[in-house]
């Protein structure tokens, strides 16, 4: 009995170590969005989102990280077969940006967006809980915000995180 009690602090400590290690692997900058499950209609007009799965990409011409993911967005946009199969569309939310600078960036690098919403003073972004660009939301066919990714989308993130989520959503709703 004495040996069991002596082991207790070690057991407790081990449990704490496991708990803290799992915590250390989480990135504190990737905050879960509290808008998941909420409809987009209170934040942006609903109609363009209906019957499609939408990637809503929050970006700006001054945002250097956004340029890192621009190629990935262009590749997704170029894959018209995939877009049609998944009823996928890419919308951009131009966040706290100058429309002249924004247009210039798209002219220079290419435009992956099917539609762009302008948010020059960041009001729409604040309603979306945006805290650092780039952020990408996935909105399902019913216009419900279903996922948010914070940070530039790499090919790995697209294939391993976002695409699986979109494919799951694909089943049409009646």
């Amino acid at each position, binding site marked *: 009995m004495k040996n069991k009690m002596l082991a207790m602090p070690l057991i407790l400590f081990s449990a704490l170590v496991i708990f803290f290690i799992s915590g250390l692997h989480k990135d504190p*900058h990737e*905050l879960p*969005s*509290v808008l998941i499950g909420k409809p987009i209609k209170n934040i942006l007009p609903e109609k363009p989102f209906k019957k499609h799965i939408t990637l809503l990409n929050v970006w700006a011409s001054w945002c250097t990280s956004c340029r890192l993911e621009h190629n990935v967005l262009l590749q997704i946009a170029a894959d018209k077969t995939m877009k049609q199969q998944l009823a996928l569309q890419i919308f951009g939310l131009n966040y706290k940006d100058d429309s002249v600078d924004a247009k210039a960036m798209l002219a220079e690098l290419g435009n992956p967006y099917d539609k762009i919403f302008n948010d020059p003073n960041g009001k729409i972004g*604040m309603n979306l809980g945006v*805290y*650092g660009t780039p952020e990408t939301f996935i909105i399902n066919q019913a216009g419900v915000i279903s996922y948010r990714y914070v940070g530039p989308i790499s090919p790995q993130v697209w294939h391993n995180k976002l695409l699986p989520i979109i494919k799951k959503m694909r089943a049409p709703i009646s």
Partner: protein
Amino acid sequence: MKKIILTALIMLSPLCRSMPADLYPFDNPKEAQRFTSLTQEIRCLICQNESIADSNAPIAHDLTEKVYHMVKAGKSNLQIKQFLLERYGDFVLFLPRFNAHTLLLWSAPILFLVLGFLFLFIRIRRANKEGLTTL
């Protein structure tokens, strides 16, 4: 003489930073007080150990300005916090709300303390009972 003036200027220079009070003026001192305390309770989501009052991140400026306008518009502290919680979640406040979700967070320190004392208590009792000189 030059040295004295120069030293005095250098020592007074910290006063030259712009205080939020200049950027966000209030007519009503109570409102000013509310604004100051609120902005110190709200976390900057980029510089996560700083309040929006202290941080220079863009989101901190945006949220500070929003809080300013809401205070001026007569919104209560609860309404302002609710606005932020609805968009950014519990993490945006330094003091998390007390609900089922955060129950473990709030009670963990006390739980550890109680468990620790319980452990000690049982050990001491057993040691006394068995007439042991060490635990």
